[in-house]
């Protein structure tokens, strides 16, 4: 996803990069809504000097990239949570073992009372 084709290649000479300004505007629009309506799209395209289709496709791609980033972040958060839960779990396990022993001891003490 992060591999970039260099902007200058024989077969890709028709490609242009959007300007920083264009990208800034697009990003801003994206921040408010990840999907853009037709009307707004046309308007934005006009403002930016782009074809509506270009704007549409940019949004498409942006959603895909954004979704991936989100997933990466969620994954790492979940992993942290998992690790901490796991260590708490181990603590609890040991606690249980010692409690178990205590139960047994108490029980047998009770038994011994009737000797």
């Amino acid at each position, binding site marked *: 996803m992060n591999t970039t084709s260099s902007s200058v290649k024989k077969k890709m000479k028709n490609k242009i990069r959007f300007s920083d300004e264009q990208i800034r505007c697009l990003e801003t629009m994206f921040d408010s809504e990840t999907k853009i309506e037709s009307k707004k799209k046309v308007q934005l395209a006009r403002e930016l000097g782009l074809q509506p289709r270009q704007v549409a496709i940019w949004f*498409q791609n942006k959603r895909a990239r954004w979704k991936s980033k989100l*997933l990466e972040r969620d994954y790492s958060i979940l992993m942290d949570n998992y690790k901490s839960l*796991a260590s708490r779990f181990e603590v609890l396990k040991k606690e249980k*073992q010692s409690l178990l022993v205590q139960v047994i001891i108490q029980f047998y003490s009770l038994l011994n009372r009737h000797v």
Partner: protein
Amino acid sequence: MKRLGSSDSLGALMSICPNTTDEHNQGNNHVYTREFQALLEGLDEEGCVEESGGHMAEKKRRLSVDQVKALEKNFEVENKLEPERKVKLAQELGLQPRQVAVWFQNRRARWKTKQLERDYAVLKANFDSLKHNYETLKLDNETLLSEIGELKSKLNEDGKSECILRVKEETIVPETDEKSKAETTVNSLTKCDIDSTHLNLENLNGTNGVISASVFTDFKDGSSDSTDSSAILNEDNNSPTAAISSSTGGVSPHQFLDLQNGTMDCTFQFKDPKANIIRDVHKAYQPQFVKIEEHNFSGEESCSTFFSDDQAPTLHWYCPEDWN
């Protein structure tokens, strides 16, 4: 999560998900696929796009189904492309080498995302499972704690209480851990008494010194034989089992406290004739553990932690001959 498919026409370019070929199944699929179509049409990270009017018809031509199939097959074998393979493939399929390269690039990106989705799902399942076990364990401990309290108070009472120790054997079958990424390990318990509730104090994962114990509380009144049992708990890390041996009037099979692998089984029954208190200890414990390949959270504790610090490593308990 969005399903991926080659349902719409341009989706054939990606041929991402072989399991969906429904032409009419556009609704769920097309968003993701379309986004990658766009990628394939030549956008890079920064939104580089072909000039609006100026693209050649040839560039826009979709790959045929056969071409995609061949590419996919190739991708399965090896997802990175060397120059020679690229050229060869391009020739075979009647494509430009560049097209093949770009296809592989996008395909790898696509695969990475899918892989992340899979990893996330596995992790989520593991987490939920662990959480469930954690909650259960917590409840177990609370129950044990109250059990201890009640036993202690009983100890301080003047009145007699009948204590019947019934020791039963029980089989616990641990499933073997496989190497697969996502697996479930479930330990099953057989209940001995119909009306009994049991506290299953079973821990996960037998490989590192797990102690399991079942404490049964029998609701039935005085139905048990009184058993003498002399119980010897011997912690010996070398021997796989220590024995709680019982010499009884009835037939009580040997019980084992297996500190290495596993199981101790005792039935505790309390019947206080005065207050008619019957202990109610119940927990259903289901250790489900789905493994993630890079993580192994099985406990490292050795048997030596089974006994808390102020306990002697070897305990000898004897029950009197005729205490009933």
